[in-house]
């Protein structure tokens, strides 16, 4: 897995920002060294000595002062120029009428992703083919969130009632970590993002697998009773599973939950034990999460876990 540094970009959209940051950083460091050296030199050189005569009173020098007004101004003109260049490269204008490839919706506290051409519905883990520019329409279901995957480019706010467009692209295969970056309430910390960039062939395989509708009829044993529990209790008021009922996205779609890397917006690694722990009491794992503690019995948890683990 890659580190999450903005200075380790893996996207044509993130490179110009890292480049701009380095140039501005070098300029800033140079000014800092200049100022600090001047201050330290003055401190050492002009330290008061015993019996010192009173220093000459210098009321100012207009030429010098204009010089240190104009010099930073020129530097800023340069920084502004490279800023505008980086803006165009890292956030190119979308051509008119270009339909978005994907809709991403921020929820308290997870991400919903809809692939608009294939119809795949994903949560928190977003697969993209390497090297392809995806135009994403970003929305919010509740409060303001912010999409941020440092290695892949700019942040963008998800604002209720005001969709934003941004580009998503990865140059190299890998898993890129990101997170919600706008404070959005109690569990803002656990609204993590994973972007999984893979080859076109792998992406198509993944898409086909996501579109497969799991069969309930063939389930037996614990998994069979788990599917019964899922339908009998209120699970499906918030979660949908393809083949069971219509699209409800109050909570993440569970059709392929067993294939995900994490649970609860990144708070747990997705293992059967952790899934059982989550089902037993989500509030103990992610306090104030919108999924209540249903006080399931251990048998119910075992059966539900067995069922959900079949949803690869």
């Amino acid at each position, binding site marked *: 897995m890659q580190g999450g540094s903005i200075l380790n970009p893996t996207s044509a959209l993130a490179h110009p920002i890292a480049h701009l940051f380095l140039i501005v950083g070098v300029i800033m460091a140079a000014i800092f060294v200049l100022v600090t050296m001047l201050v330290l030199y003055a401190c050492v050189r002009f330290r008061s000595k015993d019996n010192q005569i009173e220093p000459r009173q210098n009321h100012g020098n207009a030429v010098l002062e204009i010089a240190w007004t104009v010099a930073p101004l020129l530097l800023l003109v340069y920084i*502004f120029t490279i800023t505008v260049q980086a803006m165009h490269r890292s956030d190119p204008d979308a051509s008119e009428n270009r339909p978005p490839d994907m809709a991403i919706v921020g929820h308290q506290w997870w991400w919903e992703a809809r692939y608009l051409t294939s119809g795949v519905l994903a949560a928190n883990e977003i697969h993209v083919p390497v090297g392809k520019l995806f135009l994403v329409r970003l929305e919010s279901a509740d409060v303001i969130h912010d999409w941020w995957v440092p290695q892949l480019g700019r942040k963008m706010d998800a604002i209720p009632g005001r969709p934003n467009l941004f580009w998503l692209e990865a140059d190299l295969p890998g898993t890129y970590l990101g997170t919600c970056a706008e404070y959005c309430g109690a569990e803002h910390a656990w609204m993590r993002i994973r972007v999984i960039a893979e080859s076109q062939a792998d992406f198509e395989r993944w898409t086909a697998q996501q579109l497969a509708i799991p069969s309930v009829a063939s389930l037996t044993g614990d998994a069979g009773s788990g599917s019964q529990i899922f339908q009998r209790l209120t699970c499906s008021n918030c979660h949908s599973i393809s083949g069971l009922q219509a699209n409800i996205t109050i909570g993440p779609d569970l059709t392929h939950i067993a294939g995900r890397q994490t649970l609860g917006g990144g708070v747990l690694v997705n293992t059967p034990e952790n899934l059982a722990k989550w089902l037993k009491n989500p509030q103990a794992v992610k306090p104030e999460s919108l999924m209540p503690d249903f006080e399931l019995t251990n048998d119910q948890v075992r059966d539900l876990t067995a069922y959900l683990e079949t949803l690869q």
Partner: protein
Amino acid sequence: MSGVPLFPEAPTLRLAKARGPASSMLTWVATVDHKKIGIMYLVVSLIFFLAGGVEALLMRIQLAIPGNSFLSPGTYNQIFTMHGTTMVFLVGMPVLTGMANYLVPLMIGAKDVALPRMNALSLWLLVFGGLFLYFSFLAGGAPSAGWFSYAPLSEKAYSSSQGLDYYALGLFILGIGSIVAAINLIATIILFRAPGMSIRRLPLFVWMVFITQFLVLLALPALNASVCMLLMDRLLNANFFVTASGGSALLWQHFFWTFGHPEVYILVLPAFGMISEVIPVFSGKVIYGYEFVAGSTVAIAVLSFLVWAHHMFAVGMGHPIDTIFAIGSMLIAVPTGIKIFNWIATMWGGAIRFTTAMLFAVGFLVMFTIGGLSGVSFAAFPIDWQVTDTYYLVAHLHYVLFGGTIFAVSAGVYYWFPKMTGRLLSERLGKQHFWIMLIGFNLTFFDQHLLGIIGMPRRVFTYPDLPAWGTMNMISTIGAFIMGVAVLVFAWNILSSLLHGEIAGDNPWNAWTLEWATSSPPPEENFDLLPPIRSRRPLWDLAHPDDPDWKHGH
């Protein structure tokens, strides 16, 4: 009594004799004396500074290791909200208003402020507003939507406890207090200057306070209007900021930053003013380029109203708007840079005395420069698209408001404490305070730049165990506790010096402005006699009859 030799033939202003000192509690509660009110402002700020500091330490304990469960997410969010709100409204603003309250009348040779009873009103509104805000902890939970309370998270649907109502009403009360204080200071500076104290001769601290009060006067009503609308949304379903009902969540951000960006300059300009008093005195030289330092303050004030949306580069306003706000934000660096260079030029060729006040001023120069420079990286807004709302921003704002404002206020406290109390603060403890603070501050905040760069967002109650995140957060936490030690040294210095400090005398630093022409502490109506004011440095002129400033046209 003034200890400065006055020329009997010089034109002087005769003012009322001081009445005897009174010591009962009531004389403080019922006072309308600007000095007592100023000191009470400072004491109130110090108490809230300790509260906000404890909140910071609680956050740092929670963040010391990944996945910590010291605080629940709900508690953590209340505490970071109260930390920010406290430090801005109950520490930063009142400590500066307190210094201005105490010093402005003295520095312009006045008996008191123009509206002494309104002055008491603003102080007690501060106390009331502060206690009101903190009462929320007992009334079902403090606000937890951040000090900026973005809608719709701050709306009833997503913040159902009463914390946000306390936030809105508390800020409203504090806002009225600040506006009243601003009117008072403006009126005082315009009307109550002693004969000879022309606008162009104002000490730079007074000048910067003067400009700042116009920012308060224009910015705080925007905040008060906004919190009223928020309260109407929450209590009366007004739906100003509820998108689902036809309002606009984004509108809150525009309103809030219309206040919020000038607020940054409300918090730093008076600090610049203190630095502009301390550096010349301890360098033994007149301020270099008074006109540039004063004029650049006006430039900053005007620009500060034109840059609010640089807090919103990530909301997707579009390239043209981002570009316009980037230009304004970059321009602010120019007048700020002028000040830094003029302060260095003031030190250049001087005879620098490294008192604690001067150490803090030099610390300010370097720390604030770091904060100012990282600020420019946000104005280059593709960088902002990456680092806003991360720990890089947390580092930046603390270099500006702590490395800037708090270091400058510390310099000011060491400089003016003897005037306020008649006793010097201990230089030995002062130097310990400075060095411990400098080390703790940089340990806490410097590595937060790097944390932001490697992907850590701000306002998270915990974080995953990614490479280096735990180590760097632990360093930050250790630094925060070192800062805590520095604050304890400072508090001990204040207490012990109040009782046993060296007697200061009227003018312990050989300073040149009018507050040093009266006794320490000054009598009730400040001056028995005023020296002639024929330049910006009346006491310099008295001490240097052969080379007074007014001969140079200043």
